[in-house]
């Protein structure tokens, strides 16, 4: 019996699941870096988050929506990884699970599941935890190379936290003291610095970026325009004021900027459809990130910046409809 079907009869090898698999692979270098610097406790948080997100999605599909579980598309695994990467490595397990619940059940399935959610689920989960448990969310274990069991690890501030602190006290002596706590560029680049699990190593994140580009999962546009905006904006302020707080290279390498720009501002579902729209989105994220970092009470603004821009996606999409062939060139 011959099969019949409509054209096209071939498909690109990429499907939703394979894309998610590639994103997971791209996130692995950052996991390796986290293990080196934060030890096994980072792994505990990561595994909890992944298991939590997958389990919540499975349960919601099975018992509430009564549809075949969608966990096979691996998107819940990506959400779990990203959520964990945005948490400190000493986060209590039960709090991680609360984050998973908010990310998957409230930010994703309640909106209609993959493809319908307006906000990046992992970021919603993170921000919820940040607001609910501010103390745990802002005490980061200091990196301790190869101390896998995390014996006697102190907690300390992130680079951006130190900078914010300097600003708040702003007396010359304290300033000098604070500055010596700052990691140098090399440390920030490989990730020997305090921070959330997956955000510290620029090197690892850039490796992931290279993988995503090579596998054609994302274009270079969003990360590039996001980072370029932050760099230019902070450079202008830095040259103008000489304020160490906005020193552009530190701004690029610190906090969750690279993680956000490469992995979260590029989430298909919550970002614009067209190249043009994506550039607008990325520039918006960059501007908001710097504004929040510089003028708000929070040291870090990547999560908020991306979430705010998520809300603008429908408007951006509306104004960046591509020009139809044969309807007049601009």
């Amino acid at each position, binding site marked *: 019996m*011959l*099969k*019949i*079907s*409509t*054209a*096209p*009869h*071939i*498909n*690109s090898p*990429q*499907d*939703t699941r*394979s*894309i998610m698999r590639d994103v997971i692979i791209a996130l692995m270098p950052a996991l390796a870096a986290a293990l080196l610097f934060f030890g096994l406790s980072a792994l505990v948080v990561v595994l909890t988050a992944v298991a939590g997100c997958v389990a919540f999605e499975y349960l919601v599909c099975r018992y509430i929506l009564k549809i075949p579980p969608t966990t096979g*598309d691996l*998107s819940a695994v990506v959400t779990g990884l990203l959520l964990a990467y945005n948490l400190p490595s000493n986060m209590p397990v039960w709090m991680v699970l609360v984050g998973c619940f908010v990310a998957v059940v409230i930010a994703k399935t309640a909106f209609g*599941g*993959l*493809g*319908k959610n307006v906000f990046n689920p992992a970021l919603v989960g993170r921000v919820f935890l940040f607001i609910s448990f501010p103390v745990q969310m802002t005490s980061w274990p200091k990196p301790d190379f190869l101390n896998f069991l995390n014996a006697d690890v102190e907690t300390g501030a992130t680079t951006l936290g130190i900078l914010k602190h300097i600003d708040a006290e702003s007396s010359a002596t304290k300033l000098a003291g604070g500055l010596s706590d700052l990691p140098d560029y090399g440390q920030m680049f490989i990730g020997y610095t305090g921070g959330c699990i997956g955000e510290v190593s620029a090197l690892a994140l850039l490796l992931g970026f290279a993988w995503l580009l090579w596998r054609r999962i994302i274009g270079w546009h969003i990360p590039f325009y996001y980072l370029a905006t932050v760099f230019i904006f902070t450079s202008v302020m830095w040259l103008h004021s000489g304020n160490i707080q906005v020193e552009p290279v530190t701004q690029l390498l610190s906090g969750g900027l690279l993680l956000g720009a490469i992995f979260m501002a590029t989430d*298909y*579902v*919550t*970002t*614009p*459809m*067209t*190249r043009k729209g*994506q550039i607008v989105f990325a520039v918006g994220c960059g501007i908001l990130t710097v504004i929040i970092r510089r003028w708000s009470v929070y040291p870090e603004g990547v999560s908020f910046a991306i979430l705010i821009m998520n809300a603008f996606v429908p408007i951006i999409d509306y104004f960046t*409809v*591509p*020009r*139809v*062939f*044969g*309807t*007049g*060139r601009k």
Partner: protein
Amino acid sequence: MSNKKTFTMGGIHPDKHKITAEKPIEDAGLPEIVYIPVKQHIGSPAKILVAKGDKVRVGTLLADADGIVSADVHSSVSGEVLKVEEIEGEFGYLEQMITIKVEGDEWEASIDRSPDIIREINASPEEIIAKIREAGIVGMGGAGYPTPVKTTIPAGKKVDCLIVNGIECEPYLTADDRLMVEKAEQIIIGAKILNKALGIQNAVIAVDENKPAAIEALRNITRSYVGVNVQVMKTKYPQGAEKQLIEAVTGREVPSGKLPADVGCIVQNVGTVNAVYEAVQKNKPLFERVVTVSGDAAETPSNFLVRIGTPASFLINKVHGSPDKIGKIIFGGPMMGTSAVNINAPITKLSSGILLFKDDISFKPEETVCIRCGKCVEACPVGLMPFAIAAQVRDGDYHEMKKLHVLDCIECGSCAYICPARIPLLDYCKLGKYELKKSK
């Protein structure tokens, strides 16, 4: 003109699978029976001139064009007309066909069967168009638009460029490629003939860079012909689509809803141009064409010269495709072709390929939810938003659909090919177009 060109918007790069590119065109030989449809073109069916029991020869006129937008149909074999009635075509629909029992290979005396290439073009423009009409030539790239109509420039329009389409951007197909390698000079003379009919000086043969043998063969000969040039193109699908090709070659954009002649261009497929040469210089009607028979269920994939009306099953036997292994048979290419239900359906003037796929890759993947990846938007060569069209068609909102320019969709399938959620976007576009046209 040495720099490679391509179209600006969208496009995809599917795996080429041009496994038959090196296989010379082989004469498929004569089947026992042929089924010749009287409508192998866009327009009205031709009027049937023969009846059961009539003896015909190769090249005998079987049916006469009915009006301007129609085309003559000739016999491809010599033998006896068995019946003239409706028979199941490739998609299972009944089509009017003339069934001929093959008894031999006697050609009409008027056809010049010598192998000599005739370079001198003696026919006047009017005679050229008349000969094209008498030979029943239609656009052989798949559009099936009667060629005489396309060669007559509408009043008030000025055409300055003939583009010969040697792109063949569909995976697997190599029929045009082989034709350019083996009939390079005939194609170039055919282009000169069309130029004469159109009253213009320039023709560009556009060939994708993945066909080096064809490019070399054509270039060797264009040296001795003024006004015919080869333009090498950067490979991208759907470069062979008429409007995309014009934009790629000339930079001119055919306005939405307009014709190529509106920007001064005429596009003809290489197969058509070869048929024009044969009609005008050799008096040979269009009754055979090159067909690629390929796919992973074909043991010996090949390019064949096939008489129109030959049943697909005859060609499938020739490539040793075993019927139990074949899951799907496609007429045309894998991007735009249609899967056949009838294994005995005949080759027509438009059949560029027969593809045989094994059972295990013949399924249609399961549709999942749109993940808003934007890949369909990026791939669309027309700048449409296929995901949005799909959503509107699902909602039945035809007013919105019009705003989305669904009528400009060229049905290339790039969006559906690229979609990671495997949403049948092309089906939605076709359905949208159909409903929109109906509601007018």
